[in-house]
């Protein structure tokens, strides 16, 4: 029982000052389907990158800790070495060349070669590829996953669902493969395809291949996994056989917060009297990777409203849709008036301001000064900070400087001065600049997305405090979208959980961890969906 295939011990990984993995442990036995669970950013992908010897890890200074493979310490510092050891990966985004055939993709860089004169002279590279053999190998590997596909089909003419199976075929075609990592394999599959996949996983495990199964679907975990390991914030929460746990317990383990103190608030809850500050009806946003399908939300005046959910479920797109950055359908009401044909200009004029989750993209002009960053939105939307000379305008440097200095002081932006470029600021200070820009529009409603991502703890605290202060003193309505549930729960009045592009439920900040966990995993709507299916079936 003690023979582990893979042991990762005391793994610690830092990106700069940011610790993403702390003393992490993972033990995988042969024949085992080992589920890895955790919220986004819990450190799962970093751990897998370490396992695969990805360049990201080594370009950023390596990691601490030890990896044992079949009981022996190993150095997996390139993907090649991991592959040679027998570790395979079924990627979340398909690692396929669309212009190649299925066979060529399955055998990529492992092409069977013919013996020929040129090969003898020029080595492996000048050997001619044995395309017939390639086809046979590919067919065999496809057969193993139960796929009946023509191996000469071009990859880009294949439906998405099938690509997953080609990926798996490729991994099991590597004859020495002993461990396979499945990174959210069922995310893009239909219910029935997912079932096929789970069956294949079981079959593979039975044949002796260990499987690491990364997923957010608890029901699938309960169905196929032998062992569950739960991560949270880069630390190990627990690892146990599936028989000794339950869906509820896992959900609780994933969420369980080191509850920071809730921020002291004099009044809370917002104004119950209509009209609402912001209302969405059947709201859909077409943002790749974060689509929302049908969102209905009512945000009260003067309330702090939270949007939570796992990555990819759509929470990010709501604010982006409201601001007109991504195309949307459905109805949007601000202070009771409907906004049709949403454009950023209209929304900004209506008194909304946005701090984007994409700080370095949408959020900042990195090669520009702090003062420029702060003033530009108001200059565009409200024509502030300008001297008007009739035919032409000039930026009013004096006022821009004065306003920037004020903001630097109130938000405690650590910088050498208002003319410093934002690229040179730390993450926290960059975020403060973004907030300052939003505030220079003097908004009634402030939408903030992922405000504390990649920020040190001190700055986090200060930012959240400031948001609460704005809400309390100026009565500003604030909508926070965040992946950090604990943080939302410490400041929000109500929190909507987004799952599969819809609102799974709206919870009070002091609702139980279990409830949060189950809703984040979409437990209710999946259960409901299934019971409906069974009824109809």
């Amino acid at each position: 029982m003690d023979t582990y295939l893979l042991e990762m011990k005391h793994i610690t990984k830092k990106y700069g000052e940011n610790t993403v993995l702390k003393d992490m442990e993972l033990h995988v036995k042969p024949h085992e389907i080992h589920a890895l669970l955790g919220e986004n950013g819990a450190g799962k992908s970093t751990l897998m990158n370490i396992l695969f010897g990805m360049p990201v890890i080594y370009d950023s200074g390596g990691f601490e800790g030890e990896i044992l493979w079949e009981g022996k310490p190993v150095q997996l510092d390139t993907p090649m070495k991991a592959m040679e050891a027998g570790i395979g990966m079924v990627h979340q985004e398909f690692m396929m060349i669309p212009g190649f055939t299925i066979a060529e993709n399955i055998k990529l860089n492992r092409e069977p070669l013919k013996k020929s004169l040129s090969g003898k002279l020029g080595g492996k590279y000048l050997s001619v590829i044995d395309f017939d053999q390639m086809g046979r190998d590919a067919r065999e590997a496809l057969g193993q996953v139960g796929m009946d596909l023509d191996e000469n089909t071009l990859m880009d003419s294949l439906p998405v669902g099938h690509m997953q199976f080609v990926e798996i075929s490729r991994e099991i075609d590597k004859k020495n493969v002993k461990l396979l990592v499945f990174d959210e394999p069922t995310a893009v599959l239909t219910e029935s395809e997912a079932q096929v996949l789970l069956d294949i996983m079981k079959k593979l495990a039975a044949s002796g291949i260990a499987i690491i199964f990364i997923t957010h679907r608890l029901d699938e975990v309960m169905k196929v996994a032998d062992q569950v390991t739960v991560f949270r914030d880069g630390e190990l929460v627990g690892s146990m056989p599936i028989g000794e746990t339950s869906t509820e317990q896992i959900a609780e383990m994933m969420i369980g917060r080191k509850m920071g103190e809730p921020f002291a608030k004099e009044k809370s809850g917002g104004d119950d009297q209509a009209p609402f500050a912001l209302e969405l009806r059947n709201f859909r946003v077409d943002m790749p990777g974060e689509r929302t399908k049908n969102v209905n939300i009512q945000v009260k005046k003067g309330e702090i409203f939270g949007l939570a959910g796992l990555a990819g479920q759509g929470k990010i797109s709501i604010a982006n849709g409201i601001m007109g950055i991504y195309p949307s359908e459905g109805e949007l009401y601000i202070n009771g008036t409907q906004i049709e044909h949403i454009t950023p200009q209209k929304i900004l004029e209506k008194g909304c301001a946005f701090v984007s989750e994409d700080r370095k993209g949408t959020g900042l002009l990195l090669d520009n000064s702090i003062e420029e960053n702060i003033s530009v939105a108001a200059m565009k939307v409200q024509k502030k900070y300008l001297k008007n000379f009739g035919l032409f305008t000039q930026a009013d440097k004096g006022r821009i400087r004065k306003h920037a200095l004020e903001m630097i002081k109130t938000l405690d932006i650590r910088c050498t001065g208002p003319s410093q470029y934002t690229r040179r600021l730390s993450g926290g200070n960059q975020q403060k600049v973004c907030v300052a820009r939003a505030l220079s529009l003097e908004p009634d409603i402030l939408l903030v997305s992922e405000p504390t991502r990649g920020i040190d703890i001190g700055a986090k605290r200060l930012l959240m405090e400031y948001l609460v202060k704005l809400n309390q003193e100026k009565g500003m309505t604030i909508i926070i979208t965040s992946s950090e549930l604990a943080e939302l729960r410490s400041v929000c009045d109500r929190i909507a959980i987004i799952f599969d592009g819809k609102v799974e439920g709206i919870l009070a900040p002091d609702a139980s961890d279990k409830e949060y966990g189950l809703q984040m995993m979409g437990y209710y709507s999946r259960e409901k969906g299934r019971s409906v299916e069974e009824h109809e079936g």
Partner: protein
Amino acid sequence: MHKTMKSRLKTMGVGLKQYNVVIFFIILAVAAYFVSGVAPTVFLQEIASRFCRNAFLVLALIIPVIAGLGLNFSIVIGAMAGQMAIIHTVSWGITGFPSFLVSILLSTPLAVLFGFLVGKVLNKTKGNEMITSMILGYLANGVYQFVYLYLIGTVIPFPDAAMMNDNGVGIKSSLGFADNFKYSLTNVWNTNLANFILIAGVVVILLVVVRLVLAVVRKKQKGTPIKPSLLLGSGILTVLCVILICLSLFNEKAQFTLRFVTFPVSALVCVLLLCLFNGWIFKTKLGHDFRAVGMNQQVATVAGINVDRTRIIALIFSTVFAAWGQIIRLQDIGTMNTYSAHEQIALLAVAALLVGGASVVKAGNKNAIIGVILFHAIFAVSPQVGTALFADSQIGEYFRVFLAYGIIFVALAMNAVQQNKMKKR
């Protein structure tokens, strides 16, 4: 059923679209020929010699396109390596076919080195390979001029004073090879076009027969069905060859025309060898890596292919072939503008490849061969067309330059638009 019909029609449409460019230029070439009023002998002679001079250089472009480096404008650097080799070979007093061989041998290590250096720089400028390769060509031109115009005779000793400027510094700006290097390859085997058609026709028919026999054997052994397209293609080729052979043998008028066209068979053999090489390399592991890297660098990296190294190798191949191509070209021309013979190489080769229906991401032997013939047919007669239409040969010359630049612009723009569409999706 309906659906397959539709999709078949669609693929046919795509196929036609692919040949749009080619069809357009065929029409243009034919029209240009008739308007120009050039005698058929002259026209055929122009095409024959221009084809054998330039096809090798155009074929040198294919590997980098497949490897995802785009149109390799830095073949001018390869051409410089060829010219350097020629200068030194001639200065050592070597003549005739040996001078060709020595030039080839001498140019190869130079071109390998240059290709390696270009590859290194292009790996640092991923996403901007084409403009970098072009500017690198200009930059190398400066260095080349510095060495051969200034260092030769001052720092580097040079044996042949006749090739140098009168003051003993630098190589003359124009060199004639009439009694040493000229025709060193061409003269190995050239014949008139009538004979050539006879030989080539017979060879082609023999090849067709062999291919058919092989297909039949395979059908008996493995049961692979014979594709109808193979039968059709063979039929058309055979009939064409027979017609051409008959013309060259029995039609007096045609015979008269063809007899007076000399055809450099040895250069053609070199071109065909490179075609075969290009065909073969993509069946090897290396060629497969070129394709993989060209289509998706990220996936190739994850699969363990050394992307940067593969790209450098692709450029080394291209640069070496460009050097050889320039040697083949210059031995046939027989004179060399020391400091500008390479300048137009990339422009003409790239334009020819694109006229043949290639794009920035897709090119093959077929595109190169068809492109060279069409492009140079137009190029050869456009001054006469200008005279015929506007009584001004200058216009024709400007027009053909415009055509070369224009086709490159259109190909680049089409590629960029397509890329942006893909990104949006």
